[in-house]
């Protein structure tokens, strides 16, 4: 196992103001890149975003900042002429400039992409914006909710009751979808650079990232020209399907899409229900006929609901899976730390926090047999690496 990763020696200057850019920088840093986050003297905006560590205030208290900035270095630069020049020099020494905000926002900080690329031909400018570098909506403002709405996924999410508006999924999933495309876009540009020696401008649009991530919604329009309708916690579809969330005896929920067409899982389900004496008339040979099952779907659904209601969620998840049924328990985040599978894989990683304590953070989502991602390690304190990084600026060879 090697300590050298694909990003070893890759120098990234991050000017990110939203989770799309910050998470992209985190992915790179956790995987071994040297990511320098440039912050204004008061700190990046995300240092002011909650949730906060209880009882703590100041620039190190934000848990949003800690989650999205692990393993990076922090350098403080003001808007002074001298600091602008320092920033330009950092960028010219780097392989990658990572920016967010609407197109033009970086220019306001004295960074002209075309000029930088001319001075440093190997530089990859990775610009992650709400709607892209240009176009009729390029100057529009966005957010996670706005991105998910404009891009389409939001309309597929919500409840069966359409008096209730579409509901935004939790977290920053719009931003983090853009981050995924920023990551792969950068990799494609780095692969191209390894062939041509030249960097380029990589123009990532959150809007377009989400517009291509609706799964079935676009193909249903491209082909049969029908629209999907949102349904509670299951696939939006052209017409309604049976509920797929089942409540357990301990008042939790399990996801189980009852698919009648496949004989094997049907039989596994009936056998399981029968072993608890709860299969009722489903053991009747008539139910081995698909058409009969389909005609009696509501009856089947009710019996399965009852079966789930009298068992605990953990039992239903593990015993169902043991019997080959694709049942998912709806874990709350706090349930994950005790999961035996994740523990066996050593997934969670203790990471030092600014107050000296440690907390478990998710480990790398990538496992390679020949190298180990070094992160996540602690997010930087504001300006922690200013002296160190600026002392080395202007001397490094450009690129690797």
């Amino acid at each position, binding site marked *: 196992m090697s300590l050298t990763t694909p990003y070893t020696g890759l120098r990234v200057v991050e000017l990110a103001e939203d989770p799309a850019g910050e998470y992209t920088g985190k992915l790179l840093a956790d995987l071994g890149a040297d990511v320098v986050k440039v912050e204004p003297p008061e700190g990046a905006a995300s240092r002011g975003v909650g949730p906060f560590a209880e009882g703590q205030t100041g620039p190190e208290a934000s848990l949003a900042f800690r989650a999205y900035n692990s393993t990076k270095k922090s350098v403080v630069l003001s808007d002074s002429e001298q600091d602008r020049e320092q920033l330009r020099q950092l960028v010219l020494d780097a392989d990658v400039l990572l920016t967010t905000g609407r197109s033009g926002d970086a220019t306001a900080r004295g960074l002209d992409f075309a000029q930088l690329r001319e001075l440093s031909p190997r530089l990859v400018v990775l610009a992650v914006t709400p709607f892209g570098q240009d176009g009729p909506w390029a100057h529009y403002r966005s957010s996670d909710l706005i991105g998910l709405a404009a891009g389409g996924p939001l309309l597929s999410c919500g409840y069966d009751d359409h008096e209730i508006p579409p509901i935004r999924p939790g977290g920053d999933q719009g931003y983090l979808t853009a981050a995924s495309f920023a990551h*792969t876009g950068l990799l494609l540009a780095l692969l191209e650079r390894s062939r041509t020696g030249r960097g380029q401008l990589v123009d990532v649009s959150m809007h377009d990232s989400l517009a291509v991530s609706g*799964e079935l919604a676009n193909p249903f329009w491209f082909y049969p*020209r029908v629209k999907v309708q949102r349904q509670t916690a299951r*696939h939006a579809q052209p017409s309604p399907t049976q509920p797929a969330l089942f409540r357990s005896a301990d008042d939790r929920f399990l996801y189980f899409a009852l698919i009648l067409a496949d004989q094997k899982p049907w039989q596994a389900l009936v056998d399981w229900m029968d072993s608890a004496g709860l299969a009722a008339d489903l053991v009747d040979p008539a139910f081995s006929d698909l058409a009969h099952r389909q005609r009696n779907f509501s009856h089947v659904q009710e019996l399965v609901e009852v079966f789930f209601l009298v068992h605990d969620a953990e039992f239903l998840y593990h015993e169902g899976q043991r019997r080959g049924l694709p049942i998912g328990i709806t874990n709350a985040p706090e349930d994950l730390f005790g999961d035996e599978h994740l523990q066996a894989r050593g997934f969670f990683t203790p990471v030092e926090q600014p107050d000296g304590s440690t907390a478990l953070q998710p480990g790398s989502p990538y496992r390679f047999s020949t190298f180990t991602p070094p992160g996540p390690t602690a997010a930087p304190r504001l300006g922690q690496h200013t002296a160190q990084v600026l002392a080395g600026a202007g001397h490094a060879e450009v690129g690797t």
Partner: protein
Amino acid sequence: MQPTASTDRRPRPRTGPLAGVRVADFCWMGVGAVATRMLADFGADVIKIEDRTRLDMPRRLPLYKDDPRTYGDEDPNPDPDKGGLFNNYSRNKLGVTINMRTSRGRELADQLIAASSVVTENFAPGVMERWGLTYERLQELSPEVVYARMSGYGHTGPHVGYRSYGPVIQAVSGMTFVSGLPDREPSGWGLSHMDNQAAYYNSAALLMAILHRGVTGKGTEIDVSAVEVGINLLGPILMDVAVNDRPTRRPGFPTGNRLENPLAAPHGVYPCSEPDRWVAVAVFNDDDWARLVGALGNPSWADDPRFGTQAARHALQDELDKHLSDWTRTRTPHEVMHLLQGAGVAAAAVQDAEDLAETDPQIAHRGTFFEMDHPVIGPARFEGSPVLFSDMQQDNWRSAPLLGEDNHHVFTEVLGLSDDEVAELAAEGII
């Protein structure tokens, strides 16, 4: 959107950063197909290996022109070349068929692996091993191979055999629980978002491994677990649990469309003039609020001193939402979007697929959706790259392969078999 002029479906040399990389692609279903699609789009020769007797699910799913059906209401005897989802997932790939239950078929697969430098799969654990295709064996066949294994739970650990697909991953990773209105069942996800994200992470892992091999000469085995990707995507929500020991199983969580971090108000999805059409509005601070009030025409209710600070407005969201809904209800989503954006307020129509494909000027400007012809389906639209590059572009050479369309090309040109040998393999049901 420019249709591709050429109707020549014969494989041609590819352009792009991955030109010259050949992939023996055992992937099927959604995650794997989307993951290798990015490689195919940017120049790799991705050879999709299929089984005629066990059709890939996207070939069977009923996304047909002029024949609307709900997922789950499949045609029992589908035309494998008619499926729109397969076309969307497997464009720019080559397609061969191999019967892996025969020893001659497995030999053929070995030859194909030997001629490739990347192997991908997303079967249930154990399937590749049953065919003798361990990482060790792949390295013998193709030294310094990149071997990507994509699964729900990863390839080690007690739940390695658990069955999963997008919604199961979303439930198990916590992504469903954190999504919904407070104090009722989760609304979760209306799509397999984790199939998308797992695919994108697998694309990145493949590209990293190829980049790494370019520098060090070393291949690698890759193990990406979709559940572990999903847990990473919980971000600050999980940090709050870990650092503050604060459970999310608490009254008032999750918060639906409302936002506490940062404190935004109004922040929600509001009804418009037509049934089930909506607009999203997000107001983050006093400046945003002043612009919103101005765009609304300075209504008298907004002068109420109780709405004087962001924190106060956050606490009075029920009232704010009612006022804003009264205003949006007489307008269309795009009318509100452009009016508010024109005033500098973050707002967007909740767009549907028709909006995206037919009227969204930004998507049209970037050419994100493109069109190619298909011999059975006819002209079809595709979801292209949301990333534009100054010095390269996606290499769209062909719509998805017909079942076994490239058998002759791959088995003769790539593996060096004779025409007679290929005809014999076909006659014996090996391909």
